[in-house]
């Protein structure tokens, strides 16, 4: 993974001092809250329902054991002993004091971490496929490019006061595990017919009040031109994105208003000028230098035999949470942070420390955060899987539900978030508990439920096979269902079913929706496939069944 050189290290140290000065000026009155707010947001510091929340950047979701230990330490020393892994591969702490933040930043800088640009109207954390470098189906590791984009976008003088936030993702596989098409901008590493590697650039995707699937704005951008192209897109957005209405300020609105042809035209004009100026060309030496950081670990020559264990639960976990690695004898292991009835995406300081120990013991140098709020061990020796499973079980981290109905994505919701209209975590807990039975979960198969507590859609509910949006109707929490969304390469926005359900009724409604799928499905169909084949009506009829009876 990337290691800071003296420039990066100096940068974060100076950044800590800069933020310390900003906090001083706030506390001594030189800055009002209105002036301080954009500064603290640029450092990922929100004022939430109970306290300040600090969001720490985890570039493309990659962490070392040393960094994990520091995060556990921060959870203990400055928070209440746990952290939350987010849908943008970051980690956030919920009980932070403003006065502690400069010290926290200093402690993070020691382990090459920071909180810069995890909030605010700037370019945010660059996310990437959480199986990067390990997946059997990737063209190349997307993270060197993600790192290049990260550096280019850090304190970019032209793009730090955008109309609104800007999220970039990078992928390198036909199987889109990074939800590229729901990002403001995304880069897909592709190969053309001549076998050359280049970049397909998407823009204008997004969730929120008005979800959109991104359009292709650059079909095949040459490697050395990618930053010039991205800068061109950013410039068009910064100049022309709406600033009169925060709900209409994302690039997705601009792309839709201009139309894709005009968007491409404006981008092309900027791109040609920037490329001609030559200052953003990536020299090969720099590309090679960064590539070297992401060289795969020294793989051993190992048998590719499936591992066995006397533990009967191992087979479930192997089947569900272990994915194919590009290298024989190795595997990718997903650590579920969705224990039945638990808070999705949360991990305690003890769990985080134990994972660091586990990594050291089994020689795994990196761990990943997925945007589905789970953790991933990318390079695991197959023969180590039984022992690792045993350790994870003892930690409560071995729930074999990756991608199943109880692997729910939920934003913090009204239990934590100042923006929320409804609670989301209890709904996730309720649904997971209803489907606790593992056999039932396997029978249902792949089913991605995503829950958001407000229209900002941090739970990505538009991309859920079943999406749930919490709303406030005259002071009562209601939950709207959406069906048929997908964040993968077959990106689609879920269709809204109809009126919302109360907190008590949403769980049963989801059960009836899933029962409908089980009745109607054909061989091999996932929930998503059946929905796409039969449409909303059968599901809608069953979901509102109780209401129909109640009305009589």
């Amino acid at each position, binding site marked *: 993974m990337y290691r800071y050189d003296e420039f990066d290290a100096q940068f974060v140290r100076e950044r800590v001092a800069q933020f310390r000065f900003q906090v001083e000026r*706030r*506390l*001594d*009155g030189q800055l009002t*809250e209105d002036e301080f707010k954009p500064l603290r947001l640029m450092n990922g510091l929100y*004022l*939430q*329902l*109970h*306290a*300040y929340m600090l969001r720490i950047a985890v570039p493309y979701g990659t962490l070392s054991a040393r960094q994990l230990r520091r995060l556990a330490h921060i959870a203990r020393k400055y928070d*209440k002993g746990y952290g939350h892994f987010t849908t943008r591969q970051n980690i956030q702490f919920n*009980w*932070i*004091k*403003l*006065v502690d933040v400069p010290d926290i930043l200093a402690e993070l800088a020691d382990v090459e971490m920071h909180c810069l640009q995890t909030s605010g109207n700037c370019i945010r954390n660059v996310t990437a496929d959480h199986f990067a470098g390990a997946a059997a189906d990737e063209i190349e590791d997307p993270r060197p490019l993600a790192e290049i984009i990260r550096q280019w976008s850090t304190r970019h003088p032209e793009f730090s006061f955008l109309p609104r936030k800007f999220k970039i993702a990078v992928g390198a596989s036909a199987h889109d595990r990074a939800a590229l098409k729901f990002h403001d901008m995304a880069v897909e590493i592709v190969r053309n017919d001549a076998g050359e590697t280049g970049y397909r650039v998407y823009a204008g995707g997004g969730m929120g009040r008005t979800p959109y699937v991104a359009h292709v704005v650059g079909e095949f951008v040459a490697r050395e031109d990618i930053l010039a192209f991205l800068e061109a897109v950013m410039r068009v957005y910064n100049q022309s994105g709406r600033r009169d209405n925060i709900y209409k300020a994302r690039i997705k609105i601009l792309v839709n208003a201009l139309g894709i042809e005009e968007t491409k035209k404006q981008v092309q004009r900027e791109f040609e000028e920037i490329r001609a100026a030559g200052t953003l060309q990536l020299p090969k030496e720099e590309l090679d230098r960064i590539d070297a950081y992401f060289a795969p670990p020294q793989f051993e020559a190992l048998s590719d035999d499936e591992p066995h264990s006397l533990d009967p639960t191992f087979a479930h976990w192997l089947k569900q949470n272990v994915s194919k690695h590009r290298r024989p004898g190795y595997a990718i292991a997903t650590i579920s942070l969705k224990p039945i009835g638990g*808070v999705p995406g949360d991990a305690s300081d003890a769990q985080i420390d134990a994972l660091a120990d586990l990594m050291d013991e089994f020689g795994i140098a990196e761990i990943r955060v997925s945007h589905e709020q789970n953790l991933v061990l990318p390079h695991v020796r197959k023969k180590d899987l039984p022992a690792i499973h045993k350790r994870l079980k003892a930690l409560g981290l071995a729930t074999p539900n990756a991608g199943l109905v109880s692997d729910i994505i939920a934003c913090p919701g*009204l*239990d*934590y978030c100042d923006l*929320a209209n*409804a*609670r989301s*975590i*209890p709904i996730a*807990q309720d649904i997971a508990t209803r489907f606790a039975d593992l056999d039932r979960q396997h029978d249902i198969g792949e089913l991605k439920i995503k829950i958001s507590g407000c229209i900002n859609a941090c739970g990505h509910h538009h991309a859920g096979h079943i999406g749930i949006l919490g709303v*406030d109707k005259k*002071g009562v*929490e209601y939950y709207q269902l959406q069906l048929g969304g997908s964040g993968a390469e077959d990106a689609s926005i879920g269709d809204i079913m109809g009126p919302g359900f109360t907190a008590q009724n949403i769980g049963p409604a989801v059960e009836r929706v899933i029962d409908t799928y089980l009745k109607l499905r054909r061989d091999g169909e996932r929930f998503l496939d059946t929905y796409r084949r039969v449409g909303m009506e059968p599901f809608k009829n069953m979901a509102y069944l109780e209401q129909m009876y109640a009305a009589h």
Partner: protein
Amino acid sequence: MAAPQPQVLTANRLRDGDVVYWNDGIWIEVFAKAQIFADKAGADAALAAAQAFVTDRIVVNPYLFPVREEEGRIRAVEEREIVRSEGPSVRRDLGKQATLESFDVSI
């Protein structure tokens, strides 16, 4: 004309972000002890007085929210304020609900 809904004045402490409530010119942590304003004039006057604490960098964003009486105690009308006064409903071991004396967890 219906009686005005009683209100409570709240804010967050600048330094630690903690939720606080107004009681006769001081900021306290326990919702149950917050001052209740039966009429708009009293509430508005307190909100105006609270601005000094903003200027003095004690609190940020003071605002009024509606409450009602239920079985002899005050309760926030909005779920959001209930959560703010107690802590996360999914972690009853955290926040005010877990640490403050004379705290009455809502059921």
